[in-house]
Protein backbone atom coordinates (compact mmCIF):
# COMPACT_ATOMS: atom_id res chain seq x y z
CA UNK A 1 0.00 0.00 0.00
CA UNK A 2 1.49 3.23 -1.11
CA UNK A 3 0.18 5.75 1.31
CA UNK A 4 2.21 8.52 2.68
CA UNK A 5 0.22 8.85 5.84
CA UNK A 6 0.64 5.28 6.86
CA UNK A 7 4.28 5.29 5.94
CA UNK A 8 5.03 8.33 8.03
CA UNK A 9 2.99 7.06 10.94
CA UNK A 10 4.64 3.70 10.82
CA UNK A 11 8.09 5.25 11.04
CA UNK A 12 7.09 6.58 14.42
CA UNK A 13 5.12 3.56 15.49
CA UNK A 14 7.93 1.13 14.82
CA UNK A 15 10.37 2.35 17.49
CA UNK A 16 7.56 2.91 19.92
CA UNK A 17 6.19 -0.57 19.51
CA UNK A 18 9.64 -2.09 19.73
CA UNK A 19 10.36 -0.24 22.90
CA UNK A 20 7.04 -1.31 24.24
CA UNK A 21 7.74 -4.91 23.34
CA UNK A 22 10.98 -4.87 25.28
CA UNK A 23 9.16 -3.33 28.17
CA UNK A 24 6.55 -6.06 28.11
CA UNK A 25 9.24 -8.68 27.82
CA UNK A 26 11.29 -7.52 30.76
CA UNK A 27 8.48 -7.00 33.19
CA UNK A 28 6.93 -10.32 32.43
CA UNK A 29 8.25 -11.95 35.54
CA UNK A 30 6.50 -9.41 37.72
CA UNK A 31 3.46 -8.26 35.85
CA UNK A 32 1.48 -9.51 32.89
CA UNK A 33 3.74 -9.81 29.89
CA UNK A 34 6.73 -11.88 29.00
CA UNK A 35 8.58 -13.26 26.07
CA UNK A 36 5.62 -14.40 24.02
CA UNK A 37 3.56 -11.33 24.07
CA UNK A 38 6.64 -9.16 23.84
CA UNK A 39 7.80 -11.04 20.80
CA UNK A 40 4.38 -10.83 19.23
CA UNK A 41 4.29 -7.08 19.69
CA UNK A 42 7.75 -6.68 18.21
CA UNK A 43 6.77 -8.72 15.20
CA UNK A 44 3.58 -6.76 14.82
CA UNK A 45 5.71 -3.64 14.76
CA UNK A 46 7.73 -4.95 11.86
CA UNK A 47 4.70 -6.25 10.07
CA UNK A 48 3.16 -2.84 10.30
CA UNK A 49 6.31 -1.36 8.90
CA UNK A 50 6.21 -3.86 6.10
CA UNK A 51 2.62 -3.02 5.26
CA UNK A 52 3.50 0.63 5.07
CA UNK A 53 6.90 0.58 3.44
CA UNK A 54 6.92 -2.61 1.52
CA UNK A 55 8.62 -5.80 2.44
CA UNK A 56 11.95 -4.95 0.90
CA UNK A 57 12.37 -1.87 3.02
CA UNK A 58 11.57 -3.72 6.20
CA UNK A 59 13.96 -6.45 5.27
CA UNK A 60 16.79 -4.06 4.58
CA UNK A 61 15.97 -2.42 7.89
CA UNK A 62 16.46 -5.72 9.62
CA UNK A 63 19.67 -6.40 7.68
CA UNK A 64 19.45 -10.13 8.32
CA UNK A 65 16.66 -12.50 7.55
CA UNK A 66 14.35 -12.69 10.56
CA UNK A 67 14.65 -16.45 10.41
CA UNK A 68 18.12 -16.00 11.81
CA UNK A 69 16.58 -15.00 15.13
CA UNK A 70 15.05 -18.45 15.53
CA UNK A 71 18.24 -20.42 16.09
CA UNK A 72 19.64 -17.57 18.17
CA UNK A 73 16.63 -17.49 20.44
CA UNK A 74 16.34 -21.22 20.62
CA UNK A 75 19.99 -21.54 21.51
CA UNK A 76 19.67 -18.90 24.17
CA UNK A 77 16.68 -20.66 25.69
CA UNK A 78 18.37 -24.03 25.57
CA UNK A 79 21.59 -22.69 27.04
CA UNK A 80 19.75 -21.04 29.89
CA UNK A 81 18.06 -24.39 30.41
CA UNK A 82 21.33 -26.30 30.27
CA UNK A 83 23.40 -23.81 32.26
CA UNK A 84 22.36 -25.28 35.61
CA UNK A 85 24.08 -28.44 34.44
CA UNK A 86 27.41 -26.69 35.04
CA UNK A 87 26.49 -26.48 38.70
CA UNK A 88 25.36 -30.04 38.76
CA UNK A 89 21.69 -29.14 38.83
CA UNK A 90 18.99 -30.72 36.68
CA UNK A 91 17.90 -29.29 33.37
CA UNK A 92 16.02 -25.99 33.60
CA UNK A 93 16.76 -25.34 37.24
CA UNK A 94 16.55 -21.61 37.95
CA UNK A 95 19.83 -19.79 38.58
CA UNK A 96 19.66 -16.36 40.15
CA UNK A 97 21.99 -13.45 40.66
CA UNK A 98 21.27 -12.20 44.11
CA UNK A 99 21.00 -8.44 43.55
CA UNK A 100 17.81 -7.02 42.11
CA UNK A 101 18.07 -4.65 39.14
CA UNK A 102 15.62 -1.84 38.40
CA UNK A 103 12.67 -2.68 36.17
CA UNK A 104 13.95 -6.10 35.35
CA UNK A 105 14.11 -7.21 38.92
CA UNK A 106 16.13 -10.26 39.64
CA UNK A 107 18.46 -11.43 36.92
CA UNK A 108 18.29 -15.14 36.48
CA UNK A 109 18.36 -17.87 33.94
CA UNK A 110 14.60 -17.51 33.60
CA UNK A 111 15.11 -14.04 32.19
CA UNK A 112 17.45 -15.30 29.51
CA UNK A 113 15.02 -18.05 28.79
CA UNK A 114 12.30 -15.48 28.30
CA UNK A 115 14.55 -13.43 26.04
CA UNK A 116 15.15 -16.56 24.02
CA UNK A 117 11.41 -17.02 23.73
CA UNK A 118 11.07 -13.39 22.67
CA UNK A 119 13.62 -13.76 19.90
CA UNK A 120 12.14 -17.01 18.67
CA UNK A 121 8.65 -15.56 18.53
CA UNK A 122 9.88 -12.59 16.51
CA UNK A 123 11.84 -14.82 14.19
CA UNK A 124 8.98 -17.21 13.67
CA UNK A 125 6.24 -14.67 13.18
CA UNK A 126 8.25 -12.56 10.80
CA UNK A 127 9.46 -15.53 8.84
CA UNK A 128 5.93 -16.73 8.41
CA UNK A 129 4.43 -13.42 7.47
CA UNK A 130 7.26 -12.34 5.24
CA UNK A 131 7.27 -15.65 3.45
CA UNK A 132 3.58 -15.49 2.84
CA UNK A 133 3.54 -11.95 1.61
CA UNK A 134 6.54 -12.51 -0.62
CA UNK A 135 4.87 -15.31 -2.47
CA UNK A 136 1.44 -13.75 -2.29
Amino acid at each position, binding site marked *: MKTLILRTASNYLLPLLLLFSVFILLRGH*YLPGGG*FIGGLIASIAFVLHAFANGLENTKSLLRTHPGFLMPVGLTLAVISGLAPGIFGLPFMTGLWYDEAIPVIGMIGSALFFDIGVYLV*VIGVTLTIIF*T*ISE*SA
Partner: protein
Amino acid sequence: MEILLALMTGVLYAAGIYMILRRSLVKLILGLILLGNGVNLLIFLLGGITKGKPPVIPDGPAVLGEVFAAPLPQALILTAIVISFGLQSFAIVLIKRAYKVVKTDDLDEMNTTDENA
Protein backbone atom coordinates in the same frame (compact mmCIF):
# COMPACT_ATOMS: atom_id res chain seq x y z
CA MET B 1 -21.47 -17.87 35.09
CA GLU B 2 -20.01 -21.34 34.84
CA ILE B 3 -23.19 -22.50 33.20
CA LEU B 4 -22.99 -19.84 30.55
CA LEU B 5 -19.32 -20.49 29.97
CA ALA B 6 -20.03 -24.19 29.65
CA LEU B 7 -22.68 -23.39 27.09
CA MET B 8 -20.28 -21.09 25.30
CA THR B 9 -17.69 -23.85 25.20
CA GLY B 10 -20.26 -26.20 23.78
CA VAL B 11 -21.21 -23.65 21.16
CA LEU B 12 -17.57 -23.17 20.17
CA TYR B 13 -17.11 -26.90 19.78
CA ALA B 14 -20.33 -27.23 17.84
CA ALA B 15 -19.45 -24.37 15.54
CA GLY B 16 -15.95 -25.69 15.02
CA ILE B 17 -17.24 -29.11 14.18
CA TYR B 18 -19.88 -27.81 11.85
CA MET B 19 -17.22 -25.82 10.06
CA ILE B 20 -14.79 -28.68 9.66
CA LEU B 21 -17.58 -30.76 8.20
CA ARG B 22 -17.91 -28.34 5.27
CA ARG B 23 -16.24 -28.81 1.94
CA SER B 24 -14.24 -25.61 1.83
CA LEU B 25 -10.65 -25.61 2.93
CA VAL B 26 -10.98 -22.12 4.37
CA LYS B 27 -13.97 -23.14 6.44
CA LEU B 28 -12.05 -26.15 7.59
CA ILE B 29 -9.33 -24.00 9.02
CA LEU B 30 -11.72 -21.53 10.55
CA GLY B 31 -13.37 -24.53 12.16
CA LEU B 32 -10.10 -25.74 13.58
CA ILE B 33 -9.45 -22.31 15.03
CA LEU B 34 -12.89 -22.29 16.62
CA LEU B 35 -12.25 -25.71 18.06
CA GLY B 36 -8.95 -24.47 19.44
CA ASN B 37 -10.74 -21.60 21.13
CA GLY B 38 -13.28 -24.04 22.49
CA VAL B 39 -10.60 -26.22 24.01
CA ASN B 40 -8.88 -23.24 25.56
CA LEU B 41 -12.10 -22.09 27.10
CA LEU B 42 -12.75 -25.59 28.38
CA ILE B 43 -9.38 -25.77 30.11
CA PHE B 44 -10.00 -22.33 31.51
CA LEU B 45 -13.42 -23.22 32.77
CA LEU B 46 -12.53 -26.59 34.24
CA GLY B 47 -9.43 -25.18 35.89
CA GLY B 48 -11.73 -23.01 37.95
CA ILE B 49 -12.57 -19.38 37.28
CA THR B 50 -12.32 -16.38 39.54
CA LYS B 51 -13.35 -12.83 38.79
CA GLY B 52 -11.05 -9.88 39.08
CA LYS B 53 -8.14 -11.55 40.89
CA PRO B 54 -5.32 -12.10 38.47
CA PRO B 55 -2.57 -14.41 39.70
CA VAL B 56 -0.05 -11.63 40.05
CA ILE B 57 1.50 -11.10 43.45
CA PRO B 58 1.06 -7.45 44.40
CA ASP B 59 3.95 -5.34 45.61
CA GLY B 60 4.77 -6.16 49.17
CA PRO B 61 3.47 -9.61 50.02
CA ALA B 62 5.43 -12.63 48.96
CA VAL B 63 2.40 -14.78 48.27
CA LEU B 64 -0.96 -14.25 46.69
CA GLY B 65 -3.91 -13.31 48.82
CA GLU B 66 -6.63 -15.73 49.77
CA VAL B 67 -8.63 -15.62 46.57
CA PHE B 68 -6.86 -15.57 43.28
CA ALA B 69 -7.33 -17.12 39.89
CA ALA B 70 -5.63 -20.47 39.34
CA PRO B 71 -2.43 -19.77 37.42
CA LEU B 72 -1.77 -23.24 36.04
CA PRO B 73 -4.68 -23.47 33.60
CA GLN B 74 -3.71 -20.06 32.30
CA ALA B 75 -0.17 -21.21 31.66
CA LEU B 76 -1.47 -24.30 29.90
CA ILE B 77 -3.78 -22.29 27.70
CA LEU B 78 -1.01 -19.90 26.86
CA THR B 79 1.10 -22.79 25.68
CA ALA B 80 -1.82 -24.22 23.76
CA ILE B 81 -2.62 -20.89 22.14
CA VAL B 82 0.91 -20.43 20.94
CA ILE B 83 1.15 -23.95 19.62
CA SER B 84 -2.09 -23.60 17.76
CA PHE B 85 -0.82 -20.38 16.32
CA GLY B 86 2.11 -22.26 14.84
CA LEU B 87 -0.18 -24.91 13.46
CA GLN B 88 -2.66 -22.38 12.17
CA SER B 89 -0.05 -20.45 10.29
CA PHE B 90 1.08 -23.64 8.71
CA ALA B 91 -2.49 -24.53 7.90
CA ILE B 92 -3.14 -21.20 6.31
CA VAL B 93 -0.09 -21.57 4.13
CA LEU B 94 -1.22 -25.04 3.30
CA ILE B 95 -4.50 -23.61 1.98
CA LYS B 96 -2.56 -21.30 -0.20
CA ARG B 97 -0.33 -24.01 -1.51
CA ALA B 98 -3.24 -26.36 -2.02
CA TYR B 99 -5.08 -23.77 -3.97
CA LYS B 100 -2.05 -23.21 -6.14
CA VAL B 101 -1.43 -26.87 -6.79
CA VAL B 102 -4.88 -28.39 -6.79
CA LYS B 103 -6.59 -25.25 -8.08
CA THR B 104 -9.53 -25.51 -5.74
CA ASP B 105 -10.44 -25.13 -2.15
CA ASP B 106 -13.13 -27.74 -2.50
CA LEU B 107 -12.02 -30.59 -0.29
CA ASP B 108 -14.17 -33.04 -2.21
CA GLU B 109 -11.84 -32.67 -5.14
CA MET B 110 -8.80 -33.60 -3.13
CA ASN B 111 -9.15 -37.33 -3.00
CA THR B 112 -6.73 -38.79 -5.49
CA THR B 113 -4.50 -40.17 -2.76
CA ASP B 114 -7.35 -42.25 -1.42
CA GLU B 115 -7.99 -44.13 -4.61
CA ASN B 116 -7.08 -47.77 -4.53
CA ALA B 117 -3.99 -47.68 -6.63
